[in-house]
Each structure stands twice: as structure tokens, then as C-alpha cells.
């Protein structure tokens, strides 16, 4: 029942927001109310209402084609729903009082996107998963195309075409899986019971993987991403990079690895190679960026590359680290985008060359930036460290023959991330700066509050990661048994 409510609140909130679009005074509070309710509900679902029977919902739907409307809040879903709710709640706080064109439609689309993403995180039916997967995309298309930067239409369209192509291949894969099940059902449980041959698994892997790889994005499917991140309005970029990319990881963890474990192992070297290669590639490009948004976009490709590699490394450490990092990366990159947005709105530019010497006039902003950047680099004490450390131990312990290559290459990515992050901080906050000193960046109370919460989350989960790790422990263990190749062959 809770699972259904989690889906319905943003859906209804979005529709209400569209309807009251003319009353500009009310749309902001309605957005906050919907996001706040959602946050409360998810918190309750994780704590006092933590009973499995509350977390499931199933209703008859297109039974002719073997699909049902079934949702379930499993540990992975818990982490992602929490992330989604936290991000939207903080975003709603941050955006209060912001004036923009057609705010009703803007918040409405944002909430519909949240509903779509929640659906992806909760669905345990293949067709429902696909429905929500596409429905999360459509709001993003309108958000970026209407409120974005000068090149928004072409860039967003490229993004749309890319993801659409990926997802219809995913659809073909899902239909194929459905046709193989004896009861012709799209249910995840039925699909997991299939005994697929190696050839079938390989085929299906390359049908299903592109959808997730494009969403992440994994090198070389990433070309839409820097442009789309740059041109989308920053709140939308925030949602895209903090929450929406997690749809891809979830897809890998729930709809690819346990279904196609043998193919994932067979092709693991190739995919991990691409992923870690992408880390270095994106980091090098990020280093040379002159635009703050593009820099963060490329740094996001690098971080996601590590997560992709960890998914295919397929051992307990990497999976636990990945589950943790799903949450941590969302928080950290959200903080980054808040700061980029503040700089752009207050100073009117995000070109690194035009910025400089911000530290003297805006010490508060500088402090926040340094902490959040450290979390992004994954320094100890921050939440980023826990996830990346676990993923590295996992990568080192992977069964691939090239484990040391992957680890070394991915490790150099971490070093590079320090290089470009610190380089950016040096030239934006400490450098010479333009001849005309820039005005100070004044943070409003709510902006300070939001940033404080972000920093608080960074340290809380950096120092006490165990509660979150406990949530996913049984899940990772279970998944590990499903995908571990030695375990699989023992059962043969």
C-alpha cells in the first residue's frame, strides 16, 4: 500500500500543480508540500512502517499480455526512494520563492518525473517498469526544452532520441523474456526463474544493456550527456544527475545482472573496461573544461563509470559499495549543482575564466564548495569515501583476469578527480579573479539551510555509514548469490 502511495503523491501533486498554474503564489508551496509529504512517507516506510506486507502492492492490469500492476519496496528500492525523496524535498526548499516562467507547469513536470522515477524504483513487473521508464523521460524532455539554455531544443532532442532508442531495445528484450516464461508473464519473479542458455543471455544482454548504459551514461554512450546537462535549467540537471541516472544502475542491478548472470560475467571484462576507460576519459575532459556545468557533467560521467564497473565486478564489496554510493553520489552531486546554480544566478556567469577570488568575498560559499568537492573526490570522513572505498575493494577482488588493470585505471580516475576539482576551486575561489572584483554571493536563509543539510548528510553518512549499509546488506548478499559465477556453477 505504501508503495502505491509513494507513486501517487507526486503524481497527484504534479496534476494539482498543472491545474493551479495561474496562481503563481501557490505553486511553490504546493511543490514543497508534495515533496515534504513524500519525504515523510518514505522516512516512515523505512522506519516505523517497515513491514514487508505494507511494502507490496499488486493489482490486476493487462492480464492478457501477462502484466500486472505490481510494486514492491525492496532494500535497493528503499535507498533509491529515499534519495529521490530527499533530493526533491531539498530542491523544493531551495526553489521556494524563485520566480520563473510558467511555474505551475515547471513544478508539475518535475513532480511527474518524480512519479515516473519512483515507478521505476518500485516496479516488479517488466512492462510496468518500461512504462515508468518512459514516463520519467517525457517530463524531462519538456522541462529541458522549455526552460533550458539557448541550444536547448536540439540538445534535448538528441537526449530524447538516444534514450528512446535504448529503451525500445529494452522493450524488445523484455518481450522476449516474457515469451520464454512458461506462464507468459512479465513478473520479475517469473523471469528470474528462467534457465537461459549462454547464447540467449548474450543476445539479451546487448538488447537490454544499451538502455541502461545510455541512461547512466556509460562510455561510449555518453555523448548526449554533457550537452543535455549544460543546456537544461540547473534544477532539472540536478534531478537528472542525482536521481535519474540511478535508474540505469537500478536497471543493471534488478533487470540485468540477476537475469543474465552468465552473460554479465562473459562480457564483464568488456563492459568494465569501457567503464573504467570512461572514468579516465571523462576526467581528462573535465580537467580542460571552462564551464562549471560541463565540468560537473564530465565529473559525473567519471563517477558513474566507477559505479558501472562496480556493478559488473559482481562481488559483495562492490555491490554494497554501489548501493551506498547510489545514495552518496546523489547527495554530493546535488550539492555541487546547488553551488553552481548559486554562482550562476548571483554572478551571471559560470565560465571559470570569468570567475576568481570568490573566497575573499563569499567565505560561506567557499566553505560549502570545499566540503562538497571533497566529498566528490571521496576524501575520508565524507560519504563519498565509504562508497568508493568499498567499490575499489570490490574491483580489486573481481574474478576478472584484468582486475589489477581495472583497479589501477579507476584509481587514476580518483587522482584525476582531485586534480580537476581542486583546480576548479583554485581558479574560481582563490585565483586572481577579473580586474573588476565580483560582488559577494549572498546566501538566503533557506539556501544556507539546504546547503547545511547537504553537508550534514555528507558527514553523517561518512562517519556512520553502517545504518545505510545494514539496509542493503541482505539485498547485496542475495544479489551476490544470484550473480556470482562460482556459486552458479556449483549448482549446475
Amino acid at each position: 500500500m505504501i508503495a502505491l502511495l509513494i507513486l501517487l503523491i507526486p503524481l497527484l501533486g504534479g496534476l494539482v500543480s498543472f491545474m493551479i498554474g495561474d496562481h503563481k503564489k501557490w505553486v511553490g508551496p504546493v511543490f514543497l508540500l508534495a515533496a515534504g509529504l513524500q519525504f515523510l512517507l518514505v522516512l516512515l516506510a523505512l522506519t516505523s512502517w517497515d513491514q514487508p506486507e505494507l511494502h507490496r502492492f499488486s493489482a490486476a492490469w493487462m492480464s492478457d499480455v501477462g502484466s500486472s500492476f505490481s510494486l514492491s519496496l525492496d532494500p535497493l528500492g528503499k535507498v533509491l526512494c529515499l534519495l529521490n525523496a530527499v533530493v526533491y524535498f531539498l530542491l523544493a526548499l531551495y526553489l521556494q520563492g524563485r520566480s520563473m516562467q510558467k511555474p505551475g507547469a515547471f513544478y508539475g513536470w518535475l513532480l511527474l518525473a518524480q512519479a515516473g522515477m519512483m515507478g521505476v524504483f518500485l516496479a516488479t513487473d517488466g512492462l510496468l517498469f518500461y512504462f515508468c521508464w518512459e514516463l520519467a523521460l517525457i517530463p524531462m524532455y519538456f522541462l529541458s526544452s522549455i526552460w533550458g539554455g539557448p541550444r536547448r531544443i536540439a540538445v534535448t532532442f538528441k537526449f530524447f532520441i538516444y534514450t528512446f532508442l535504448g529503451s525500445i531495445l529494452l522493450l524488445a528484450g523484455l518481450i522476449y523474456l516474457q515469451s520464454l516464461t512458461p506462464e507468459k508473464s512479465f513478473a520479475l519473479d517469473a523471469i528470474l526463474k528462467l534457465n537461459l542458455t549462454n547464447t540467449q543471455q548474450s543476445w539479451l544482454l546487448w538488447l537490454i544493456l544499451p538502455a541502461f548504459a545510455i541512461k547512466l551514461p556509460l562510455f561510449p554512450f555518453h555523448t548526449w550527456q554533457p550537452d543535455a546537462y549544460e543546456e537544461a535549467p540547473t534544477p532539472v540537471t540536478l534531478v537528472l544527475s542525482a536521481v535519474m541516472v540511478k535508474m540505469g544502475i537500478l536497471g543493471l542491478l534488478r533487470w540485468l545482472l540477476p537475469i543474465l548472470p552468465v552473460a554479465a560475467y562473459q562480457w564483464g571484462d568488456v563492459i568494465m573496461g569501457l567503464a573504467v576507460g570512461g572514468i579516465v576519459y571523462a576526467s581528462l575532459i573535465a580537467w580542460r573544461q571552462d564551464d562549471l556545468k560541463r565540468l560537473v557533467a564530465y565529473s559525473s560521467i567519471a563517477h558513474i563509470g566507477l559505479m558501472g564497473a562496480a556493478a559488473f565486478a559482481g562481488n559483495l564489496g562492490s555491490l554494497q559499495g554501489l548501493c551506498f554510493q547510489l545514495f552518496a553520489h546523489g547527495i554530493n552531486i546535488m550539492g555541487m549543482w546547488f553551488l553552481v546554480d548559486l554562482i550562476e544566478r548571483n554572478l551571471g556567469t559560470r565560465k571559470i575564466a570569468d570567475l576568481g577570488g570568490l573566497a575573499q568575498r563569499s567565505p560561506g560559499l567557499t566553505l560549502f564548495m570545499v566540503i562538497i568537492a571533497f566529498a566528490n573526490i571521496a576524501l575520508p570522513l565524507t560519504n563519498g569515501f565509504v562508497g568508493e572505498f568499498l567499490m575499489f575493494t570490490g574491483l580489486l577482488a573481481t574474478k576478472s583476469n584484468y582486475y589489477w588493470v581495472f583497479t589501477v585505471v579507476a584509481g587514476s580516475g580518483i587522482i584525476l578527480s582531485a586534480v580537476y576539482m581542486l583546480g576548479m576551486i583554485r581558479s574560481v575561489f582563490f585565483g586572481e579573479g577579473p580586474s573588476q572584483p565580483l560582488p559577494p554571493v549572498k546566501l538566503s536563509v533557506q539556501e544556507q539551510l539546504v546547503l547545511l543539510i547537504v553537508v550534514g548528510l555528507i558527514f553523517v553518512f561518512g562517519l556512520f555509514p553502517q545504518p545505510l549499509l545494514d539496509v542493503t546488506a541482505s539485498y547485496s548478499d542475495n544479489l551476490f548469490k544470484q550473480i556470482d559465477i562460482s556459486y552458479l556453477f556449483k549448482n549446475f
Partner: protein
Amino acid sequence: MNALLVSALWGVIMMFSGVAIKRMNVVRYVAMAGVAILIGLNVAEMKGWHLLAIDTTGMLAFDHYALLFNSTLLLAVFIYLVLSGSAMERIGAHCADYLALLFFIICGLLMVSAFESLLILFLGIEIITIPLYILTGSDKKNLKSNEASLKYFLLGAFSSGILLMGIALIYGARGSFALSGVADTIRVSNSLMLSGMLLLLIAMSFKVSAAPFHFWTPDVYDGAPTVFTSFMATVVKVAVFAAFVRLFDRSFALQINAWQAWVAALAALTLFMGNITAVFQQSVKRMLSYSSIAQAGFMLLAVFAMNTTAKEGLLLYAATYSLATIGIFAVLIRMKDYSFEAFNGLASRYPWVAAALTIFFLSLAGIPLTGGFLAKFYMIKAALEQSVWLVLFSLVMAAVSVFYYFRVIQAMYFKPVGQTDPITFDPGFTRLLIGVAVLLIVLGLFPQLLIGQLYF
């Protein structure tokens, strides 16, 4: 049978109503009433109520599938008349005659979805196309309309000749016109039979504008008055598809190995030509004619797969494709300029019309939550059991289709209002358009509402 009889009768009524009634909108209401009666009679027949007991000597069989298909078609015609009927008055002074011809076409449509004999198939197709030649050329003073009519007539007559030749060869091989007689299991296929079948395949491909027999389509659709293009591209096309499936399902199921590869090639080529050419169009009307070719490619997957899912899917496809295209044409008819730029900024002036149009285009592109998605889903599901490659190709082509459908959405929402003549949509029209859009979403969420009717 009920609807077939009354549709012919109502055509005659329409002819005389032009003389008796001077006000054209009243004539239109008579036509709408006629279609409503046809729907009622057809639904009544599904429940087992017959107007007259007629022995067709096995030439026609209104089975459940045919009746449901006809009901869907008639509903689409009704929506078409309500949304776009008024545009007929602007073409010329003979509105009542156009409506009479429309009813004769309906008569043909009802025949081709229920034929049991090759003769009835030929008869039905001729009853459909001959009035269409006239309607295509109904804008008498317009050169393009005349050209389209002539082109359509020449190529239509040519393909009818091929159809007749095929029927003759098959009669030579089997000694029967009945579908069950053609599907004789005892006698093996001989060259006479196979060549007849190939000719029928070519003729039907002509009629549904499958590549490489599609060259007449863009010119005819573009030249015909838009209100009739809307009718031809939707209701007529899907009805001929129903005939296509019925013919090959009933008569040539045993020879599936002989024709399936050809249909696969036709489908692939149609998808390719339709989608790729549509991307480069500058006029929305022309884009929609190529889109109708592209959608025909998807519907050919039903002929290719020829299983239960395919037949269910074709029904859904017919409904969703017709509704969406009729809705888009209804808006297009009210515009003076058919270029993509004419849609610029429509969303800021008419948000509801733009929202409905967006749903129509999303449905044609096959985005979930719309009926168009499920229609494509059924087609893919049906064809996947037979050929993975064809399905993958059609999916890539579905992605290509996003290019041209979304151009209109981009113009409506993301471009500033242009310098074009102001368009007006009255509130009643807007509400109807939204109603059709809602219907598409309902079909996208609960396809059983339509498909479930098959099994009552």
C-alpha cells in the same frame, strides 16, 4: 449484415437529402445520425440481433472479429464526421453528394472486413476506391486535386487489374472463389496457385500503400482535399489491412512459407521508405502521408506474424492509429498553412489543443501511456516469435519516427508564435479533441476494453 444494408440505404438517403434540405449543416447531421445508427445496428448484431435474415450463400460472414472491427471503424468515422465534417462544406457545393459517397465507401469497408469469397473482396475494394477517386478530385478548381485524382484512378485501376488477374489464376488452380475452397488442404500448391497468390500480395500491397508500391500515396494524399485525406489515410487504410489479414489467414495459411519472407521484405522496405522520407518533409500534410506509409509498415507485421496476438494487435492498431491521425488532421484542416512553422507557439495560444495534439503524436510515435504504444507492443510481440531481426529493424525505425512527430511538438511548445494567420478553435471542438485524446490514453492503459470484446 445490418450495417451493410443500412449503409447502402443511407447513401441513397444522403443523395436525396441534398435536394430536400437546403442547409448544409443539417445534411451533415443527417449523415452523423446515419453513422450513429450504423454503430447501433452493428453492436446489436454483435449481441445476436439481425435486421433481416439473409442468406449470402457463404459469400459474407460477419463473424465476431469482423463485427468488432467494423464497430471500431464506424466509431472512428463518427468521430471523423464530428471533428472534420464541417470542412466538407468548404470544398464545393455538393456536400450531400460527398456524404453519400462516404456512405458507399462505408458499405465497401463493411464488406472487405467480412468477405468469404474473393469476388466480394474485389467488389468491396472497388466500392471503396471508385468513390474515393471522385472525392480525391472533388476540389475541381484545384489542379493538384485533379492530378491526384487522375493518378489515383490510373494506379488504382492498374492494381485492381492485378488483383483480378490473381483471383483468376487462383480460380484456375482451385476451381473456387470461396476462401475455404482456396485453402484446400488436399491439393498441393502448384505454380498457378503460387503466382496467383503473389499477384494478390502485390495488389493488396498497392492498396495499403506498402513500399515499393507506395509511390501514389504521397501525391494522392497531398493533392486530395485534406478532409478526405484524413478519411483515406485512416479508416480506409486499416479496413483494407483487415481484408489483407483475412485473405492471407483464411486462404493461404498453409502456404505461409511461400509468402512470409516476401511480407517481411515488404514490411522492412515500407518502414524504411516511410520513415526516412517523412523526416525530410516540409509540410505536415505530406509528413502525415509518409507517416501513414510508415505505420502501414508496422501493420504489415500483423500480416507477417499471422497469429492471435497479431489479429488482436491489428484491431488495437486500427483504433489508435485512426483516432490519433483523425485528430491531427482535424486540427490541420483548420489551418491555412500546412508547414511545420504554422504550428509555432500553438501551445501558448491554445494549450488544450496543443496538449491533445501532443498526445496524438506521442501515440503515433508509440510512447507508453498512449494507445499507440500498446498497438506497437502487440505487433512486436506477435512478430518476435517469428523473426527477431525484423522486430529490431522496426524498433529502430520507430525511433526514427520520433524525429518527425516531435518536430510538431517542438514547434508547438518551444518556438515563439510566428507571423502566420491567426487560427481559431471553438471550445466545443477543443473539448471533443480532448475527449479523443483521453480515449487514446484509456486504450493505452486498459486495452482489454477493446480487445476483451473479442471474447464475449
